[in-house]
């Protein structure tokens, strides 16, 4: 559920207008030619002045799809020509971000053309916040679609109104990413494989406390407030008395090895092999599965005393692990 204050703030920004952003260079034949070569465009209207003149134009014509190109900042970000506004036409994203929506992705862009643009013209655009959607959830995450409309003009001689040449609608999604393996977020076709990470657990309202406890370095056990029974794995209701109310207690972390395996095959990244895994019986009486660390082969025996510790993996999850301790 989006914050009401945020919704009011962004609603108030819809319709806001931003000043001119100028082109560094006039529309010109070399840039057109480079663009056409890169894009594989071979229309002589764009590159052959004689052909363009025969077609009734005073000079070569810029490909319409270059509309956005003319007023781009260049190699350095936010480096616009003198006279350009220093306002940020996407400032609404900065307003949304602190409410817990760190990620952004471009969604779509539509171009509209009023007329051909010819070499020699100088362009600029002004912007307007066209719309901000309600909070939406997509496979990427939850957030807002923000649409900004940029209107392009060609400067004319002093005293005459500048001429509109086209528009660009640009829509982005400003969102809180859905939790999922990082690998999926990498764009397809990247040469290097992303380093494998440990799978993330599914977390539900019934189990979130456990994982948040791990992040805080605490091993929390769910307790039925009806009959005081401790339980793991957590569940929404007590299997003994069927009470739905529960709280948690922090485990001492002292435990005993109830059973174990040592995994050898298949070797699945990022895990180290052999990989010893314990079925751990906490002194409080419940069991859980966890990795065993710092354990020698002769300590791998049922009844071995253990102590919990926490390790953070891949900068995204903290897991309990158990290490042998003396009796």
């Amino acid at each position, binding site marked *: 559920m989006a914050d009401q204050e945020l919704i009011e703030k962004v609603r108030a920004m819809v319709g806001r207008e931003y000043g001119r952003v100028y082109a560094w260079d006039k529309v010109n034949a070399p840039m057109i030619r480079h663009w056409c070569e890169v894009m594989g465009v071979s229309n002589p209207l764009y590159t052959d002045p004689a052909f363009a003149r025969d077609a009734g134009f005073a000079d070569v014509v810029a490909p319409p799809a270059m509309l956005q190109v003319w007023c781009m900042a260049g190699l350095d970000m936010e480096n616009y020509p003198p006279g350009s506004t220093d306002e940020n036409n996407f400032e609404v994203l900065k307003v949304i971000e602190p409410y817990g929506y760190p990620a952004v992705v471009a969604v779509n862009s539509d171009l509209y053309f009023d007329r051909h643009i010819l070499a020699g013209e100088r362009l600029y655009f002004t912007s307007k916040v066209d719309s901000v959607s309600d909070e939406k959830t997509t496979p990427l995450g939850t957030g807002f679609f923000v649409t900004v409309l940029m209107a392009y003009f060609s400067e004319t001689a002093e005293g005459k109104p500048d001429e509109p040449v086209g528009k660009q609608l640009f829509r982005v999604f400003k969102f809180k990413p859905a*939790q999922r393996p990082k690998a999926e977020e990498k764009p397809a076709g990247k040469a290097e494989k992303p380093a494998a990470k440990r799978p993330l*657990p*599914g977390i539900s309202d019934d*189990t979130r406390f456990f994982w948040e406890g791990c992040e805080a370095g605490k091993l929390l056990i769910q307790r039925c407030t009806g009959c005081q029974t401790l339980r793991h794995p957590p569940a929404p209701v007590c299997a003994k008395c069927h009470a739905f109310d529960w709280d948690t207690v922090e485990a001492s972390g002292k435990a005993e090895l109830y059973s174990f395996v040592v995994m050898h*095959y298949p070797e699945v990244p990022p895990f180290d092999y052999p990989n010893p*895994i314990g079925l751990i019986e906490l002194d409080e009486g419940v069991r859980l*599965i966890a990795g065993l660390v710092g354990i020698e082969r002769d300590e791998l025996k049922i009844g071995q005393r253990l102590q919990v510790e926490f390790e953070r993996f891949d900068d995204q999850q903290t897991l309990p692990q158990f290490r042998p301790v003396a009796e």
Partner: protein
Amino acid sequence: MSDSLLSGKAAIAGLGATEFSKNSGRTELRLAMEATLAALADAGIDPKDVDGFSSYSVDKVPEYEIARLLGCDNVQFFSQVPHGGGAACGPVMHAAMAVATGVAKTVVVYRAMNERSWYRFGTGSYGFASSPIFDNVNYGWYMPHGFHTPAAWVGMFAQRYMHTYGATSEDFGRVAVAVRDFAATNPAAFFYEKPITLEEHQNSRWICEPLHLLDCCQESDGAVAMVITSVERARDLKQKPVIIKGASQGIADGQQSMTSFYRDDITGLPEMGVVAKEIYRQSGLGPDAIQTAVIYDHFTPFVLPQLEEFGFAERGEAKEFIRAGHHARGGKLPINTHGGQLGEAYIHGMNGIAEAVRQVRGSAVNQVDNVENVLVTAGTGVPTSGLILGEA
């Protein structure tokens, strides 16, 4: 026979199968159709007469497509039982219930998968995500630790069983050696003419301690189908009727799927106890009335507690039963005479039901003498099922 409404009402009248391999080279639908048409031909039933279907997860071949290709125009019953190999006997039970109640007259039960060439079950990567649906949350207790293969989940129970009762890896090995001995004389088995020794078992590499490679079945492609109809009708068909005398599914206290680690005691298989009690009750039979059994053996360790749950050995004493060779060729309860899933193929239990049918018919390659009743169990460590099949 008991007063059960199910026992003795339905029979397996036809049996069909493809070859078992690591790469069938054809679609699962084709495998399903080959096995189904073979089963119907075996029974002498016109394919158009089929009016019911049952299979089990994670079979991807839909019954409606089989129905369409058989030319069925009046299908009144269909079901798919969850829990993979644990379901194996479930479709036979569902079919028998449908026949016993008159909901359907001719039910095809099938399993068709390119499990080895298209999927693989033991990769450790199953596409679990972090959204809060139950499976993701449930397996979230294991996946982040890399505790992610069936062999590992079984191993956790096995280690405790060994500790509690003094069973050893060699006892597990004796199970593997005996079923591979049967496979060695079964031309349909993947390991035909490839017996193993206990020494080879002990020297095979670790998959997940305490499980060696030779404690684990091979993944397989293939299909098995059977036709179930009323006992009365089966008598008039081509084959000797194989009577469904007992059929049950089982979930017990503290049940999870492969991860019931939180029970007071993890050395038993109480869901098998549920099945045992019910199928003995339905059939009026006990362990002494069983001449041979198909005991689910995707991994060797769970064979031992199954022998205990079904009353062939006292709790914790299956190792003595095994050490005495009672489970092997010539023993008092030869198990998995087709070679089991360890030796014939891993068709998730359906090939074991097929072997039970052949043992009752008297047509098994490793035929046991004087078979009247055969016990069949399904996947262990998960919600499960079982059958007693026998002569009329």
